[in-house]
Each structure stands twice: as C-alpha cells, then as structure tokens.
C-alpha cells in the first residue's frame, strides 16, 4: 500500500507539469489547448482524458522496457542459454484485459460527445443560422435570416449557438476554428454538412482551411469575431445600410465595370468573388495581409489601405493560384486608379 502511494506521489508532479505544459502552448485565439467555445472545451476534456491514459500506458511500457534492457544484458558468465519460456496464459490474459478496460474508459465519453456535437440546431429558434461557402481560396458567410452576406470575417454573437451549413463551390475544403471547435469538411452538393459552434466569450478567433485545396491552401484563413448581442444587431443593421458611392465618376465607372462584375458592395455587384461590404473594418485583406486597424495589432500588420494596394497591384504574389484577375495586368487599371479604389474600400466600414 505504501509503495503504491509513493508511485502516485511521484506521478502527481508529472500531471501538474503536463497541464502547465499544455496550457502554456500556443495562442488563445488559435490553440486547441486553450478552448474558448463550448465544443472546443468538450473536445479539450476528451483530449486531456486520452492524453492522461496514454501517459500512464507509456510510463508502464517504458519502465518495463528500461528495466529489461538494463537488467537482462548478456554477461560473460552466460554460457548456457536461459530457460526457454513458452508464454504465460495468465499474464497474456492480463495484458489483453487492461487495454480493453482503458479503451472502454475512453469509448464512453467519445460516444457521448460524438452525438452531442452532431446535434442539428438548424431548426432551433434561438440559434443563428449561417451558410458557409468555401471557394478557392476564400470564405463566404451568409445569414439567410438577415439577408446579408459577408466574407472572410464571420461575425457572431457570444454565448449563442451558431448553426452552420457548409458547402464548397469548387474543391473540398475544411472549416476549422481550433479554439472554438474542431473541423468539418465543406463538401460538394449532395453531401452538405451541418455543424455548430458557440463562443463563450467575446473575441477574435483564427480559422483555417484544413483540407489541401491547391497552391494557396496555406493562406485560406478566416476570422471568427464573437461580439455582444447589441454589437451583433448593430452590425446587421449597418450591413444593410446603403453604401456610399465613389465620388470621382471616372473611378466609379472603373470600379463598377471591372470590380463589381465579380464582387458585391452593398446592393450592387456579383457574387463570384468575396463580398466587399465593410471591408475597411475587417481583420485582414485576402485573409493574410493583416490590418493594423484590426484587433490583433500584430507585428507585420499594415494599414488596411496599404494592404489593399498591395493586393490590387499583384494578387498572385500575395496568394499564388487565386482566381482573381490581376487589376493591373488583366483589367488595365493604373496605379492611380488602384490607389483611389483602395482608398474608397478602406473607408467602407461597418459599425458594431
């Protein structure tokens, strides 16, 4: 009995160390080890359980191995071969039974959570419905109940279930916000997926595409902004307000002909490219040029206008393989036109 206590005492610091190590890991808005949402928290519990079981298994195997490797080395006095043991029925049953039990311990919460996270909230009146469409290499979010569409930044109210319907417009992608919930693939028609997320705090969380989708797979990021209910309502209203038009008629004409054939701003434009309404208030341009106006103020971030100019001057240099024609090369815009359009877009803001 005493001996066993000693063993547990020795293990104690290990577990404390483990929790420290895990929780010291990564950024809170990105790490699966610092969950900020209901689903991610449940997944983190499962991960901790699994890791603990596995550490115990490893400790047992490693100690037996170390003991054997050290204790049973061949020595010069070993002339005769050791006894040839056939096996030991009891021992073999024992190490069949122990893994079975451990697997069972992990299996029960696994099944519970599979069903909990597989719940469909799309008919729930209290949940907010969002249709997520993935494109090479950007994300579109539309809110059927509010009649608004946005791109790259998914705005949600905190502490509310968000019911997501995911679909891709081209190749397969996967929707992943590590600190809010695990990933769900965006499939083609016929196998459209549903899932849900819930952020328990306000904040901005990094999302990523987690399925190889082509050259710029690495850059297919997005943000989830969790805000208060009031801010969310304000944002919805602000998205619906008519947008200002460009004053200079020549620029306005270029913008209308060359950009709005694919993009929308406010009521006008198409839906081939990302919706640009309120792009001046987003966290990033093209998901990877970080805006210094954004919430992160990270090293390397630049004013949104500079980022827009960089993007418009050479989109392929920013995101290889993306589907936007180069404004300069293909659409014939001059540097001045690009600057003016960037200026206009940088000022297209929404409030929340």
């Amino acid at each position, binding site marked *: 009995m005493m001996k066993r206590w000693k063993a547990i005492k020795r293990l104690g610091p290990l577990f404390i160390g483990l929790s420290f190590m*895990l929780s010291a*890991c*990564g*950024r809170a808005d*990105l*790490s*699966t080890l610092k969950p900020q949402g209901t689903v*991610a928290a449940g997944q983190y519990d*499962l*991960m901790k359980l*699994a890791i603990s*079981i596995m550490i115990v298994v*490893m400790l047992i*195997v*490693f100690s*037996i*191995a170390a003991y054997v*490797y050290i204790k*049973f080395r*061949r*020595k010069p006095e070993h002339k005769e*071969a050791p*006894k*040839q*043991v*056939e096996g030991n029925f009891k021992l*073999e049953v024992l190490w*069949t039974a122990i*893994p079975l039990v*451990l*697997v069972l311990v*992990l299996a029960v919460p*696994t*099944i519970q959570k*599979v*069903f*909990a*996270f*597989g719940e469909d909230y799309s008919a729930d009146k209290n949940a907010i419905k969002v249709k997520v469409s993935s494109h090479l290499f950007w994300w579109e979010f539309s809110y059927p109940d509010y009649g608004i569409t946005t791109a790259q930044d998914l705005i949600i109210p905190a502490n509310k279930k968000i019911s997501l319907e995911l679909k891709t417009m081209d*190749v*397969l992608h996967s929707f992943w916000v590590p600190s809010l919930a*695990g*990933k*769900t*693939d965006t*499939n*083609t028609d016929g*196998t459209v997926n549903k899932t849900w997320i819930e952020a328990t705090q306000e904040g901005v969380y*990094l999302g*990523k595409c987690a*399925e*190889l989708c*082509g*050259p*710029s*797979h*690495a850059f297919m990021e997005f943000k989830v902004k969790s805000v208060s209910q009031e801010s969310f309502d304000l944002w919805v209203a602000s998205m619906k307000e008519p947008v200002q038009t460009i004053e200079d008629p020549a620029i306005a004409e270029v913008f209308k002909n060359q950009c709005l054939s694919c993009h929308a701003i406010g009521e006008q434009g198409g839906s081939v490219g990302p919706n640009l309404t309120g792009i001046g208030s987003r966290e990033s341009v093209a998901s*990877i040029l970080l805006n210094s106006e954004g919430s992160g103020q*990270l090293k*390397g971030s630049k004013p949104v206008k500079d980022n827009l100019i960089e993007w418009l001057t050479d989109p392929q240099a920013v995101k290889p393989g993306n589907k936007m024609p180069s404004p300069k090369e293909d659409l014939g815009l001059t540097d001045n036109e690009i600057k003016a359009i960037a200026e206009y877009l940088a000022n297209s803001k929404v409030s929340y």
Partner: protein
Amino acid sequence: MDWLTTVDHKKIAILYLVAGGFFFGIGGIEALLIRVQLAKPMNDFVSAQQFNELITMHGTTMIFLGVMPVIFALMNAVIPLQIGARDVAFPFLNSLGFWTFLFGGLLLNLSWFMGGAPDAGWTSYTPLSTNAYSLTHGVDFYTIGLQIAGLGTLIGGLNFLATIITMRAPGMSFMRMPMFTWTSFVTSAMILFAFPAVTVGLVLLTFDRILGANFFEVSKGGNPVLWQHIFWIFGHPEVYILILPAFGVISEVISTFSRKRLFGYSSMVFATILIAFLGFMVWAHHMFTTGLGPVANALFSIATMLIAVPTGIKIFNWLFTMWGGQIRFTTANLFAAGFIPTFVMGGVTGVMLASAPADYQYHDTYFVVAHFHYVIVGGLVLGLFAGLHYWWPKMFGRILSEKLGKIEFWTFIIGFQLTFFVQHFLGLIGMQRRVFTYLPNQGFDLMNLISTIGAFLMGVGVIVFLVNIGITSRKPVGAANDPWDDGRTLEWSIPSPPPEYNFKQIPLVRGLDAFWKEKAAGHTEMTPSEPVGPIHMPSPTILPFVMSLGIFIAGLGFMFTSDDFGNSFLNFIFNNYIVTGLGLAVTFGSMLLRSLFDDHGWHIEEDELNGKGVKA
C-alpha cells in the same frame, strides 16, 4: 544482363533492395526540401505549387516505392529460407512482379521531368485531383504509375501466399512457422484484398481524367466522397501491410538476441490475424470530418480503438521475450529495442486519434503528421533497419560494421525524435498540414526549426548507413552459417550467402525454432528429409522485363492520347493510340511467347552438389 534475367529469389531480393533504396533516397531528399521550406515562416525556398508536388511525391514515393520494396526484399530473401524451400512458388512471376513495380515507379517519377509532378496529395482527393483543378499531367502519372507498380505488388503478394501455403518443409506446420513468415503471410493476404480496391479507384480516376468519365464529377451525378471511401478501404489496410512485416522482424531479432523463444507465440499469431482483420474494418476513421454522421463516427471510433488490444499483446510479449533473457545489443537489436518505445508512442497517439470528437481537432494537422511518422518511420523504418542489419550477413555473406551501425542508430533515432516529437504540439496549437508556409506570430517558428534540424540529423544517420554498406562490401565474403551464434530458424542452418538451390537436402522440421532445437540436441546441421538428388531449377528469362517495359510504354502512350505536341508525327502516334497499342503488343506478345514455348528448366546434378563445396 544476369540481373535482368534472373528468377532467383535471392537476387530478386537484392534488386528490390537496390530499387527500394533508390526510391527511398528520392523520397528522403523530397522530405528534406519540404523541411527546408518550413524551417522559417514565409520562406520562399520553393513555390506553393512546387511544395504541393513535393509533399505529394514524398508521401506517394515513401509509401508505395520506398518501404514497400524493402519489405519485399526482406520477404524474398528470407521466406523461402525460413520455410525450407528452394525458391518461391512462381519464380517467373516473382521477377515479373519486380519489373512491373520498378517500371511503375520510374513512370511516376518521370513526372518531375515531363511537365509537372502530381500535386493533389498522396491521397489525391477529388475534385482537386480532377482535370479541372489539377492542370498538369501530374495526377495521370500518379494514377497510371501506381496502377503499374500496384500490379507488381499484387503479383508479389500472391506469390508469397502460394509459397507459404505449398512449399513448407516437411514438419513445418503453420504453428511452427517463424514469426516473420507468419506476418508476411498475413501481409500478403491483406495485399490480395486491399490492392484491387485501389486499382479500381485509380482506374475510375484515370477514366475521369483521360476519357472524360464522371465518377467523381458532381454536376454529372458523380460523388467525390466515393473516392475517399475507395481510397481508404485500400489505404488503411495498407499501413498494416507495411507494419506487420516489421512486427515479424522485431519478433525474430528480439528473440535471437535474447537467446529466448518468442514469448506467447500463439497469441502473437492470433494478434497478427486480428490486427489484419480490424485493419479492414476501420477505414472511415480517416473520414471523421467528412460528415458521415454520428452513428458511423461512433462505430468507427470504437472499432479503431480495439486495435490497441492486439497491438498491446504484441508489445508486452516482446518485452517478456527479453525478460529473463541474455540480451546482446547488436546494431540490429538496438534498432529493435528503439522500435518498442517509439512505436508505442505512435500507437498511443493512434488511440487518441480514434476518438472522433477529438479527431475533429487533430485531423489534417501536424499532430497527424507526427502520429503517422512515429508509426511508419519509428515503427516500420526502424524495423527495416533492424532486419537489414540482422539478415545482411545471410544475404551478402558479410557482417556490417557494428561500430558504424551504432553511430548510425543513435544519429537516426535522435534525429527522428527531434523531428517528429515537436510536431504533435505544432498540430495541437493550430498548424494544419500540407501548408507550404505559415505566417509568423503564431508560435510555430521555433518548433518548425527544431523539426528541420532533426530531419537533417536523420539524413546523416542514413548516410552513415550507406558508408557502412560501402565499406563492408569491399571486405571478402566470409560470414559463418550462423554469424550471430544464436540463430533459431532454418535460414541460419545453411551457408551465407546460400547456394543457388538453398538447401542441398530439404530439412526435416521437428518443432518451433527448428534450428535452435537441433542445436540444443547437440547437432550442427538440420536432419534432412530426403536423400541427395538432382535439383530442378527454373531457367533465367528476359520476358518479365520485356512485359513490364511494354506496360510502361502503353501507360505513357495512354496518358498523352489527347495532347497536342505541336508536331504532326507525335500527335499522330499518340492521339491514335498507336503508342499504347505498341506497348500492349509487346506485353501480350511476350505473354504469347511464354505460353507457346515450354521451358522445363534445368537440373543441378548430384555430383555437382557434392563436388564444388557449397558456395554458389
């Protein structure tokens, strides 16, 4: 020339080893280039497109062309010897299997020089791998190259099944078969069931791409998720096809160098079969995030976790084989001893991944990259190194330098742990896999750098191994029959390397670890089961080589059937299936030749056997 026509299993083993080493080297260089690119954030060492080609070719090469032939090399070199046979069941097919494999692999790698390598990942998920999104011929090289190479693997697997079922020496019942032969047997059975699945998938994808079929095209009623099922119904068993022979190697090495029989032999056999069976039942655990629904995810979670049980049995049986033994840490045994903890690490992360809701977080991140490298490099590659050092004297008659072997082991395993341990954490803190670069400020930088340094250390380990081989091959052939002194199985009862006919007289097997048993009874040789007599040998032939060459040409021709070469002659012969037809004509022509002309082989006569010693 001798090498092109040989049908001897020992020579084919060496061919497989050389080819495997070659492709392994290519895959390794690709891995290092990947790691250089990821050493720091926003690196521009290679482009995004090149990176995707690199990961695709690295994965494909390693799995299909790198480790597979090394496994086949060991199986070819060892199985006939372990069961007391003079060759495999179908020597002609054995050679055919090698050459189709080699030409398939070469075809795949030609893509680097012919307009772009495949770029859709080694899993080639549709629609990314369809014409619409993968613009070069890369994926065609993938589908056609792998079909040809897969044919070789299937032929090889069938051959081993037939060999092990029909050619065991008198007295060698199934439950007296050495463990390596057992695991190879089960592996071959898995090949028989798994490879047809991938062949079907590859054919469908080829048809979609080259003939405009619509198996995976949604707008025409196809379904991309279908590809995932087909791929993983093959793909999951494939990883067990890879690891089971390594389990066999470890069983042999550990028991020899502990001077003890394998602990719990029958439970080892049972566990092997159970792993193979479960291996086929769990493919959908690669698809938890695909959206199969909670019921499927729950079932596949549990089935996957159950694999931990037979695997656990194996680990403990190995440890208890050594328990009470007299362990000698030769290089081979060092690799085996390193295998156990490393493989356990890969195994436990496997169980973690099996829990579907948690896998929603791990899937397609560096956590998974770490997991499967712990299993395939930490498990399989360490196992193969153990096997190579162990059987090298038997294959080549020379013992590899132990001193260099130890340097090689330590650099390789330390490099390995450095490379892949930190990747678990990279995945957990949000780094997805298959990204050609990453933005700074995410906390990924340091760990990626460590990983790259580790990868180069592994490279050093491999180079030391090559140096070791180089130095050793200069020494004269002189290894004893039983160079480790404690050999237990039949292969150690004959000279190293064995004569062409292996056994002058087929031995009589009187128990498990047949040779050990005879030695314990005070004998130095096996008791023969037949009198000395003339030995029938198959004749060498160039036909397998020509047949495979034909398939290779046909494959190349088929791939370019709708291309415009800007040259009317080339257009004519490719677009009218003339090249394809020519290739097929060569193949079918040589098949016809083979059927029309009976070849009865030749005999080694009695006086020859007694006369000139035993060395071939």
